[in-house]
């Protein structure tokens, strides 16, 4: 799908044109790449139209803070084939930061895509409501980035992935068209579900500028129980038993290695988050302690939320990280193999079968290579990512085999939104298929 970008436009002239759209104050240069920060849909559309006319490759981006954010990418390593090309233009949503409307009675909020998760939570908490999302990267990442990458955190066990929270969104596509998709109501099947198509599409269809979300009542009780075990295997056995109890778990994670406070301390941890009415949570605690014994830590309220935040932060950017997904029933076998790997931190989403881990930067990705074979043998997906400050590259992947009709389908769908091939789905061959979680 790589475009033959033979003739490059004069960067200075193009930058002048872009500055004419957003003003010079909304422009900067990062490692030779032009970064613009529009505030309106019209500005975003104009930027994309200029990019089409000038044949500039565009990278949509949030704040550029998330572990899978759309970074400038010059990664090259002799051990791995291929050098990933850099974009000519980054369009950042970081200056789109306001709440458009919060309807507490309808449990919905409409925000601009550059608003951070922390700012949204803070705004809706006044009405005892919350956005039940805790993706990797902490509270400073933007909602637009979360929606575009589709990454989810532990709360997906009960509340689903980002796409399950979105009622509608505005997408400025690769033609510069402003598409208002979905709506503001919780049930809507009017036409094909382009909201789901855009969510998790990693910017391949365009720039997401505005999102309407479903909110939930803030749980009366929020409690995190932590058990510590001496080995991965014993923690896994406990985690498996607890996660499959027939109760609605907010989150169920296995954590190994060093984690931020309040998840510090030794041992391999099994973490359960229980949310709901005070009575229901008390009963769930009885049920889980009957199965797993008394927990080593019992965090409530703000501390429980701090623990969730620590998981989110700990799963964030790191010099070397990996993500491995397989069926939950295979997690035990995979964990056995992971005992040999000198990871810094490791998390396992017990109900979903997704592992995330980090290695010390000096080790590089070599210690992770055995995982490639394990995933090929057991089935699943795997990716390793190197991060060099503002540069992230996915270096090795095992993906679902793609049949020709499926590849054609994806390509034709993307082309419908980006016929000029300015967006990363067209010019980065590794782009699609690595973001969803």
């Amino acid at each position: 799908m790589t475009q033959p970008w033979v003739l490059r436009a004069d960067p200075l002239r193009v930058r002048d044109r872009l500055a004419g759209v957003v003003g010079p104050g909304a422009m900067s240069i990062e490692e030779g790449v032009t970064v613009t920060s529009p505030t309106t849909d019209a500005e975003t559309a104009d930027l994309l139209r200029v990019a089409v006319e000038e044949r500039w490759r565009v990278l949509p981006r949030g704040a550029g803070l998330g572990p899978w954010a759309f970074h400038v990418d010059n990664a090259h390593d002799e051990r791995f084939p291929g050098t990933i090309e850099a974009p000519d233009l980054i369009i950042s949503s970081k200056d789109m930061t306001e709440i458009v409307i919060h309807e507490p009675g309808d449990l919905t909020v409409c925000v601009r895509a550059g608003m951070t998760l922390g700012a949204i939570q803070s705004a809706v908490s006044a009405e005892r409501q919350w956005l039940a999302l805790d993706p990797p990267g902490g509270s400073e990442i933007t909602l637009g980035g979360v929606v575009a990458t589709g990454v989810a955190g532990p709360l997906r066990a009960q509340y689903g992935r980002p796409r399950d929270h979105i009622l509608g969104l505005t997408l400025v596509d690769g033609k510069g068209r402003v598409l208002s998709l979905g709506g503001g109501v919780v049930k809507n099947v009017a036409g094909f579900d382009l909201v789901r198509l855009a969510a998790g599409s990693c910017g391949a269809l365009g720039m997401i500028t505005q999102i309407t979300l479903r909110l939930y009542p803030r749980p009366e009780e929020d409690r995190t129980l932590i058990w510590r075990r001496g080995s991965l295997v014993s923690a896994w056995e406990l985690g498996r038993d607890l996660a499959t109890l027939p109760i609605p778990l907010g989150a169920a994670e296995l954590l190994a290695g060093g984690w931020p406070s309040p998840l510090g301390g030794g041992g391999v941890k099994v973490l359960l988050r229980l949310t709901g009415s005070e009575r229901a949570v008390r009963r769930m605690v009885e049920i889980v302690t009957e199965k797993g014994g008394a927990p080593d830590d019992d965090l409530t309220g703000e501390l429980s939320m701090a623990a969730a935040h620590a998981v989110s932060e700990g799963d964030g950017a790191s010099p070397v990280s990996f993500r491995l997904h397989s069926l939950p029933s295979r997690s035990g076998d995979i964990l056995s193999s992971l005992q040999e790997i000198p990871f810094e931190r490791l998390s396992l989403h017990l109900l979903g079968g997704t592992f995330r881990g980090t290695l010390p930067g000096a080790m590089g990705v070599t210690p992770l290579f055995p995982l490639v074979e394990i995933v090929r043998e057991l089935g699943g997906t795997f990716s390793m990512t190197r991060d060099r400050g503002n540069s992230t590259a996915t270096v090795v992947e095992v993906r679902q085999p793609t049949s020709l009709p499926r590849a054609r389908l994806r390509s034709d769908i993307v082309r419908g939104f980006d016929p000029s091939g300015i967006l990363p789905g067209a010019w980065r061959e590794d782009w699609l298929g690595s973001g969803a979680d």
Partner: protein
Amino acid sequence: MTVDSPPVLEPLVVQRLRSVVGEDGVIVDPNRLLVYESDGLTQYRCAPAGVVLPRSTREVSETLRILHEEERHFVARGAGTGLSGGALPVGGAVVVGTARMNEILEVDPPNRRARVQPGVINAHLTRATLPHGLIYAPDPSSQSACTLGGNVAENSGGPHCLKYGVTTRYVTGLTVVLPNGEVVVMGGLECDDDAPDLVGLFVGSEGCFGIATEIEVALIPRSEGVRTLLGIFRSIEDAGRAVSDIMARGMLPAALEIVDAETIRAVEASIFAAGYPVDAGAALVVEFDGVDAGLDAEVREAVACCEAAGAREVRTAADDEERSALWSGRKKAFGAMGRLAPDLLVQDATVPRTRLPEVLGRVEEIGERYGLLVANVFHAGDGNLHPNLLFDRRDPEVVARVEAASKEIMAVCIEAGGTITGEHGVGLDKRHFMPLVCSPDVLDAMGRVKAAFDPWGRCNPGKVLPDGHALEDQG
């Protein structure tokens, strides 16, 4: 109304199809085709050119390949319970029915998933998973008849979707046969790296992209406890206030359903009588589920909300039998309406919950102005309205009034910030409303997505997209 008359399926084509699905797998007898001339929206009728009943992905693939080579349009059909004319075989299309693809392929408790063929009936899936303590959450009102394939096509909802979400949240993987017979595997719990999200795109595509032949769904644990209560109100506005109060207090019931006065009277006069007072203005069914210990407190709080909103009586179910009785007035409402008029147009629109009282008042006013009986049964918790227009289709003048009133109701819902369909789909019935909620650019984008799956325009023609936005309209 009859949409058009079908061209006959040529004997040679019939022979080719029978070589794939067997002699009894192809229906061309005009009398037997009558069964397929309509779906749950009986205003529209149109017999297909033929019906093919494959048993497997391979047979669907070969069937579609033959139809593609013969340049025939086709329409996938599950149980035919859809309410938007989505399975209507317009333009002499061939119906590809999934009735013989009714096998539950796998129930996988450790991974909380199941794989099914598209003809499996919704309620049968939960029946198969219950012994493992698991359920399939989406529960459309027609769940004892509707199929999983139809649910995928329509992104079906149901009373308990207030808490659990609609079909799209639970479909994790699909095997799809494209209109030219190619087979595409999408998503799956094992390999969750499908970006863009083809599974999410396919769910709710109303049979316009291809035919799902295997469906992988996520299962959830069965709730430890369930509590149901029924509030009897003097007016529908009072019931609406109780709904707002319950939600405002931060509770999240599994279901919040309102039945209005007309419907109560119809139910009580029918064999489905549920013991609702016939002089009531509205009834509100509230259900909580989850960990047993917390439920009684939630019921007490909900009862207080009902009483504060002026409920004249609140009944709580003590056991499963009483629970079924409280629900029966809601669940049998559509069946009971047959007593009021020979025909029923079930409308479906969603509005922000806070706008419900105002919108209901305007719907009532529209019904009065057009001299039509309108009965409301709806999912109040998520603002999903179902105004039911009762009429006799043998009177063309009444049919015209029904159509005009229906259009006005849609306009009112859109004006209130809502949409034209919450769970029934656009189908044939509402495609002319699509420009009211989608800009020309969005309709164009949808048309291009459709063309990526079906560049030939073979698959369920004349549905979802209005004239000028679908490939078949563009020549």
